[in-house]
Structure formats: C-alpha cells, structure tokens
C-alpha cells in the first residue's frame, strides 16, 4: 500500500462526508475461475459525484460496478467477501430488485438491454414491474429527462444507435435511482452522440443530483466532465483522486495502458525532451491554450510558423503519370436506396462519382447515415447500384458475384463477431484459402497468425476473445485473403486507446501489400495520423474529397459533417500554429525545435550546465 493510500483512507475514516457508496475489502471470484476479479477493493464515492473508473482490460471495472446493483453476489454466485454499502443498504442483505431501485445500469452493449418492442413500453418496463400504477408517466418522465425526442410508439429497431443509447439510459433512470452507472458510453457511439450523452449525464448530475459512475477509456472526456477518477489494476483500486490530479499521474496511467489527454501528452513530451515546462500539466483544451501561451511568453518565442516533423505522405508524388494508370475502383453516378419497414425507399447515395487510385489510403468520414457503409458494400458487390456503375479493376460489379470479387476486395465488418463463421480463428483465417484450394496455405496462415500476434489464441473461438483480440483476428482474416483492396468499417471503434494504437500500427503496415485501403471511421485521430486522402460524406453525397488539411482547416465543413478534430489539432489551431499539428509527436517536435535554442541561450546566460527548468507560476492547479 502506498503512503498516499494510507493518508487517503485515514481521512475517509474520520470525516463525515456523505458517501453514497462504500466498499470495504471486497473480493470476488467468478464461479469456475481461479483468480479473483476483485481483490480487496476498498473505496468510497461521495453523493452527487461524477466518477470515472479507469483501468486496463480485465482490471475488474465492470465487475466492480456489478457489485453495486447486487448482480454480484446475488446473480453471479461466486466467492464473495467484504461489504458493499449502497445508499445505506448493505448489498448482501438486499436483492437485485431492491438495489436496482437505487442503481441504474447502462451496459456497453446497451442494445441487448432494450427488452420491449416500442419506446415508451421499454422506458416504463421497470416501473411497471415494480408495481407503480403511474408507470406510463414515469416512463414518459424518463424519456423527457434523457431528451429522447421520438414518437412514444416508435419501434426500437427504427432508432439510431445514439437514440437506442438514450433509451437504455431512460430505462435506467425510470426508477429515479440515486446512482447511474454507464459502461463505456463513448465506445459504441459516434463522437457527436458521445458528447450529447455526456452533456446529458452532466445535466443529470448537476440539476438532478444523481451520482454518476462511468467506465471510460477516453481521458479527454474524463477531463471535460468527471470530477473524480478511480484507477483499477488487477482487481484492486489503486487510488481515487480528483480528476486533474489523476490525469497527471502519467507513469501510473501508462502502466495501466491509459493514455492521458493529447494536450497532457504533448506537455509531458516537451518536458521530457527539452526539460522545459510549467509546474503542472494541462488536462483540458482551454488550460492547454493558456499553458502554451504562457510557456511561449516565458521563453519569449513562438512556434507559430515552424516546420512539421515529417512531410506528410504525398500521393501526388507520381505526378502526371497517374492519369494514365486506370483507377483501381471507379464509381460513376451511383444511386442507391433501400426499402424501410414502412415499405418506403430511403435514398442513401444520390449520384456519387468517385475513383480510387493505387496508393490511396482513404478515410471515409461523416456522421451516421451519411452513406459510408453503403458505398463500401457496393464495392464488395453484395449490393448493386440502382443507377450508374461500379468498376473494380475494370470489372463491373453488376456482372459478377461477391465470391468472384472477393479475390480482389476484402471487406472487414464493423462488428468482428459477424466475421467469425468457424469455431476457431485459425479456421476462420484459412477459410478463404482452403475454399480456393491454395497450395501450401498452412504456411501462409502460420505467418499471418504470427504477424497479428494471434499465435497463442489461434485455436480459440473468436467470439470469446476480448474486443482488441477480435479486431486483430478480423484484420488477419482480411489479410489472409491477399486482396488488392481492403475496406474497413470502423476498425478502431469500441477499443481502448492502447489497442487502438496497435490497430493503427497494423493499418500502417497494410499499404505495403495492398493497393488501396478505404476506411470508414469516426476516429479523427486515425484520420489525422494515417490517411493521405479524406472523403467527407453528408446525406448521401460527397461534400469534400481532398487532403486532411483541406478538411481539418475548414471548420464549417467539420460542423456540417459532425466531425470533431483531434484535440491536439484544436490546440495548434488555437495557438495559431501554421500548418496545424496533426499528431502529438509533431506538436512536441515543433516546440522542441524552438526550445533547446532558447534553453541553450538561457543556460549560457545563467551559467547553468544542465538540469530541469521549471517555471514556478502554477497556472493550472
């Protein structure tokens, strides 16, 4: 136990703060498992707090939250020791039903939590079961609280992903619980909806006094919305700290595979190299603006016009010869629509013309329903355009079958589980090669399994792997098909940041084997770090096709397409840096290019040989 932890506990023991949750030495082992998932967890959560629970995969975050509504130990009957008190109730003495009136829970796979077919029916399901006569009113109130503006009799399968999340939240608040637990709200939603959900939670926290607990990987959201952070590691609560303090624990966060906000990373990277910085790192964008302005002021220089670290990959390198090479994919005046349940046709693509060349690393961006997935599915040939034509390497997709096109094109689903058609991932990877009776495929599969770090997992069922492993497996399945064109649908969605970095690295490796890669994504960091061509779609049309600069420097376009630029880019924009920095490394590089000059200068003046220079005017704490 660290010294800090002891102090923290002693304080908790003497003060009389109103704690809504207290856990004391809680240990839990799932039935049939050897290792405890929770290992002596002790912590307190204040009433009205907004808490983020962070930690690497398998650190026990979800299990921790399930002890609060009594699913552990009443529903999962494992080895349970210690005590949990929730809003004055001991979890051992109350059953799930009783505790659920105090604790609302929104799952990560919230779609499976919607039980009834229509909106109001689902929102009022819990009040109905608990015997409230006014259950419909309660349901309506919950819908109002969560700001879900759809017809009360709408069927849930007609809702968008964001609306479904709101409905799941409505179901959780329908019993008016004091505590709300939300498991990874950002993971499954596009960035705009994620922000909406957090604004909603903030409102519930501030105006309605709910205690909010989120399980979250995205530290930028934590910095913006949460007040307290609990770090879990290997089934233990390492500490519980106020958010700013917590996000500056860079070493410990790193050890748990948590990446601090980009602005914090940038500040720390600059200190590491140039040993110049102010006394506490910024965690939010506004703080960072002030931090770097002050830093610039102190050192009397600016980085506004410095050159970038690396020249961004330029696809115009080949110059004029490009026009002579036929495009890899050619889409001409494509129209596409589908039939909805009400038998009307919904237009998804209206008159889209675009072509893709060899060497293109395309990011396809835009809000949900803009037509990104439809465009990609047209390339695979599983759907055919209603007007116009799609040519893949000269073949019109309307004249061939998806099986035939699969020799050229690979499509990797957003949900990797839908790609697991065999009972082990090795069999999944070899499926394509085996079906085509490729000579010596075993050896090739061995290589791919090795490259994607799946050697130890290859005989396991894909469905039972963790999110990151599933994603790696789905990429391996795609690469095994040896395609010229790879299409990926949201390859980094639903992953923690560490795994996301891993996937980004694998994507960067792809272009050595593949002619064209097209990625549909909401992940603007991926776009900024990886793509050499960005296509922005909005309501079935392409509204921009150009470099990342042409997209990210156009704030109106970002607004229109519902895109959020990466934080580091916003920072460089606010600091009037030109060109903008797209990555933390580039940002730090440019500052470091200026700082040593200044430092050498200063050191010579003061006769200092070396040593960390810290300017003592804490602007952030």
């Amino acid at each position, binding site marked *: 136990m660290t010294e800090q932890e002891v102090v923290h506990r002693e304080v908790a023991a003497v003060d009389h703060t109103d704690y809504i949750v207290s856990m004391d030495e809680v240990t839990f082992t799932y039935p049939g498992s050897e290792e405890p998932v929770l290992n002596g967890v002790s912590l307190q959560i204040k009433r009205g707090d907004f808490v983020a629970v962070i930690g690497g995969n398998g650190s026990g975050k979800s299990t921790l939250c399930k002890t609060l509504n009594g699913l552990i130990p009443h529903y999962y009957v494992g080895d349970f020791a210690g005590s949990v008190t929730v809003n004055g109730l001991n979890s051992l003495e109350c059953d799930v039903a009783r505790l659920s009136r105090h604790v609302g*829970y929104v799952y990560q796979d919230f779609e499976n939590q919607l039980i009834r*077919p229509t909106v109001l029916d689902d929102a009022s399901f819990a009040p109905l079961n608990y015997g409230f006569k006014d259950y419909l009113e309660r349901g309506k109130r919950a819908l109002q609280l969560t700001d879900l503006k759809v017809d009360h009799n709408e069927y849930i399968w007609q809702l968008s992903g964001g609306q479904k999340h709101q409905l799941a939240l409505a179901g959780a608040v329908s019993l008016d619980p004091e505590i709300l637990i939300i498991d990874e709200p950002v993971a499954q939603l596009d960035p705009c909806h994620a922000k909406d959900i957090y604004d909603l939670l903030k409102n519930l926290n501030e105006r309605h006094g709910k205690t909010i607990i989120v399980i979250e990987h995205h530290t930028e959201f934590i910095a913006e919305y949460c007040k307290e952070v609990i770090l879990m590691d290997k089934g233990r609560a390492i500490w519980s700290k106020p958010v700013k303090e917590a996000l500056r624990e860079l070493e410990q966060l790193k050890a748990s595979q948590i990446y601090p906000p980009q602005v914090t990373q940038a500040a720390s990277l600059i200190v590491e190299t140039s040993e110049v910085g102010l006394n506490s790192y910024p965690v939010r964008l506004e703080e960072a603006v002030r931090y770097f302005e002050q830093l610039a002021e102190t050192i009397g220089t600016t980085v506004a016009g410095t050159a970038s670290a690396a020249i961004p990959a330029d696809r115009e390198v080949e110059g004029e010869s490009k026009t002579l090479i036929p495009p890899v994919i050619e889409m001409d005046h494509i129209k596409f629509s589908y039939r909805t349940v*009400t038998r009307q046709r919904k237009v998804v693509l209206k008159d889209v013309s675009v072509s893709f060349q060899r060497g293109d690393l395309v990011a396809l961006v835009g809000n949900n329903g803009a037509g990104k997935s439809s465009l990609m599915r047209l390339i695979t040939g599983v759907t055919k355009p209603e007007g116009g034509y799609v040519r893949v390497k000269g073949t019109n997709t309307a004249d061939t079958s*998806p099986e035939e096109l699969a020799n050229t094109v690979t499509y990797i689903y957003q*949900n990797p589980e839908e790609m*697991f*058609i065999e009972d082990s991932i090795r069999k999944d990877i070899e499926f394509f090669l085996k*079906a085509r009776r490729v000579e010596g495929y075993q050896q090739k599969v061995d290589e791919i399994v090795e490259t994607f770090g799946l050697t130890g997992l290859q005989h396991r069922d894909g469905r039972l792997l963790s999110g990151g492993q599933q994603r790696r497996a789905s990429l391996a399945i795609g690469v095994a098909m040896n395609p010229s064109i790879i299409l990926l649908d949201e390859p980094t969605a639903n992953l923690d940041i560490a795994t996301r970095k891993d996937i980004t690295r694998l994507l960067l490796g792809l272009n050595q084997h593949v002619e064209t890669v097209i990625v549909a994504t909401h992940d603007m960091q991926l776009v900024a770090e990886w793509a050499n061509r960005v296509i922005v779609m909005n309501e079935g049309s392409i509204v921009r096709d150009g470099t990342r600069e042409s997209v990210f420097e156009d704030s109106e376009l970002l607004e229109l397409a519902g895109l959020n630029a990466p934080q580091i880019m916003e920072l460089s924009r606010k600091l009037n840096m030109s060109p903008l920095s797209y990555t933390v490394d580039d940002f730090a590089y440019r500052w470091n290019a200026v700082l040593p000059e200044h430092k050498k200068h200063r050191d010579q003046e003061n006769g200092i040989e070396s040593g960390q220079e810290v300017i003592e005017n804490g602007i952030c704490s």
Partner: protein
Amino acid sequence: MEYVRKLMDRVSVEGVKIELLNTAYGNGNTFLAKLDPRTLFAWYLYFGIAPWFIHDVVLLIGLFLFMTVTTIMSRVSPLIIFILCLGLLSQAGYLLVVSWIFGGGWDTILPLLVLTTKLSVISMASITVFCSMDPEKLSDGLLSIGVPKQVSFGIAYGYRMLPSLLEEYHHIFLSFRLRGVAPKRHGILYWRSIAYFLKIAVLSFYPLILSIAKRTRTTVEALEAKGFSYAYQSPEVKKNKLSYMKFTIRDGLFITVSALYVCLLYLFTASYTF
C-alpha cells in the same frame, strides 16, 4: 437468366425481414386490429375448430367465403398469402396426382377436396386472428386469459429480437459469401447454385446461435435489474399492465355479425337439404 436475377434481388433477406415485421406490426389500423384480443380469441375458438366437424360442402363454402372477407379485411402481407396459396395448391396438386396414380376418380378426389377446403378455412381464420394482433396484443391477450407470464413475455421478446437476429443472420450469410467460392457453372436448373446457397443458409445458423447465447447474458441481467422476476410474485403488476384492455361496441358488432352470418348459413343449408 436476367429474370432469375431480378427475382433473387427481390427475395432478399432484407425483403423477408420487412415482410415479417409488417405482418407482425404493420396492420394496426384495420377494423379487426382495433378489437379486444379476447374477442378475437372467442371468435377463433369457433372458426378455428368448428370446420373440423362440418361435413356439409355448402356450409364449408359459406365459411370459406366469410373467411376470405375477413382475411382481406385484415390486410395481410402478400408474403403470407403467397405461402398460403403455395400450400393449398401443392396440396390440391398432390391429391390429383395421387388419385390419378391409384386409379381413383371423382369419388376419391371429392372428399379430399373437402378436407382441403376445411384446412383453408382454418388457415384463413388463423391468419385473420393472428395478423390482426401485433405480438404485444397477442401476449397481453394470452396473459389476460391466464397463460403464464413467461410464455406471453417470450412472444413479445421474440418479436423484439427478430429484426436484429435477421440482420445478424444476413451479415453472417454475407460473410460466407465474401470468403467462399460460388460454383463456376450453375448446373442444370441452377442446381449447383441452389445447393451452394442452401448450404450456406444452413451453415449461417451456427454462428448465429452462438452469438445469441452471448447477447442473452446482458438481456438476462437487465431483466433482473428491471424487476422482471420481482414482478412475478405480484398479481398487482398484471392488473396494471392489462388495465387498458376493454370491450367496446366494435367487439359486440363483430361478434353479432359473425354469429348472424353463421346462423343464416345454417338455415340456408338446412332449407337446401330438405
């Protein structure tokens, strides 16, 4: 060839999904859909069972006509009608073949045709009743006549899951296509292609079953948290839930007209016989 492709495009998994959902939920505005589920149950109790015991051809034809009218009134989706017709036609066709092979004449065909008529009356009565109740209404109706809560919940939940399951099935099916090899030649009467598609249609069920098993975990936990098993012990909940159901003039009218028609039919048959 071109025609077959067009047909294949129409008979997509997506299309089937839409038809199924429309059959289940799309008919909320018809006269029949506004009736109380208990009325429909009572009505079905007669029209679903009585035809078995009626041997008079005229009476059966009378019922057949009435059922045709109610089926039209319930505005069922073309898919259901298509399946019904397919069933009846194949039955009639097979009867014809069988009686021809075994040397029977009208003597054998006629009673068999009577059976077909009975079956179609019962089928249409079922379609009328079950297409006029969305799964919600059906499950509430069953609950009100004393069927256990789990059964009625199961019906409503099954339908709620149907669209997402179909979608997932579709994705898995496409996964097979996007990695598999289709036969190079279609074969006589497309038999190679048909066999290929049938094979992956069956294979797609296995991954689907596994992923359902996985999803269910969250659902079961959510049910627990939303007090589903808690409510099981309380009759109060059932009362609250069903408090919206009541009989109206509409129900009376429907039962009266049906009863009147059946009575007249019997009178007519009686006068015809004597």
